[in-house]
């Protein structure tokens, strides 16, 4: 599959759009269907696509293992961090009203960062799982 010219060209063309679509889904979540989880999945799918066409090694260079593992944790920390920020600013845990002088604006800000946290963790986990399963097959060479 790695040497198929058509795939490589189409892949090169499509992958930026997939990633862009992920970003769109992320930020448009307030107005249309979508949000952090879907965006994270689509973003990860884009990179998995890249790995399938250009090989796992190149994908790992673009998004290295250590970064992926950090993403896992960073997303949860970001989400919980928003919650703690609410605490520190005098509200309850996960209180977005206090994040800005204008409570409605504070809500929007909170939702934005929270969704970002979800996207980061989901994307990290999807990639990590893919790397894990993919790299395992190389050595032991199962069927199919």
């Amino acid at each position, binding site marked *: 599959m790695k040497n198929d010219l058509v795939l490589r060209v189409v892949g090169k063309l499509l992958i930026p759009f997939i990633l862009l679509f992920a970003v769109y889904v992320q930020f448009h979540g307030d*107005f*249309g*269907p979508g949000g952090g*989880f879907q965006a994270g999945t689509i973003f990860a799918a884009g990179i998995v696509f890249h790995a399938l066409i250009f090989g796992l090694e190149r994908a790992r260079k673009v998004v290295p293992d250590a970064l992926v593992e950090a993403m896992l944790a960073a997303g949860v920390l970001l989400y919980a961090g928003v919650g703690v920020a609410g605490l520190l600013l005098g509200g309850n845990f996960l209180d977005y009203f206090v994040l800005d002088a204008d409570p409605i604006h504070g809500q929007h800000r909170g939702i934005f960062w929270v969704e970002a946290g979800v996207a980061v963790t*989901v994307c990290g986990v999807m990639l990590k*799982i893919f790397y*894990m*399963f993919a790299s*395992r097959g190389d050595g*032991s060479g199962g069927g199919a």
Partner: protein
Amino acid sequence: MIGHFSHVVTVLLMVAGLYVVMARGNLIKKLVGLSVFQTSVYLLYIAPGKLIGGTAPILAPQYTLYSNPLPHVLILTAIVVGVATLALGLAIAVRIKETYGTIEEDEIIAADNAVQDAEDARS
């Protein structure tokens, strides 16, 4: 009875999934059954949230009737939890395949019993 048609479909799907989980010995097939079982539960939540003439809960001035957003939120969470469970189950299944050399439940039990017998024989 018409009013409950969606529930009947849901029930049949659920039970089919549950049956696959309990009756089949193949670890991967069990997981597929488990995800069918979980997926069908989504219908139980979502279907009653629908209103005839309503629209998706994305507010816009031209609509006044929306389906209930709360079940959607719950099921979004449930889907994510479901796939996380599936992924973890598959990882365990892969490890079992590597250490036991099989993913059939009967063969795994047989292998464990053999080990047990060997231990008993030694003692």
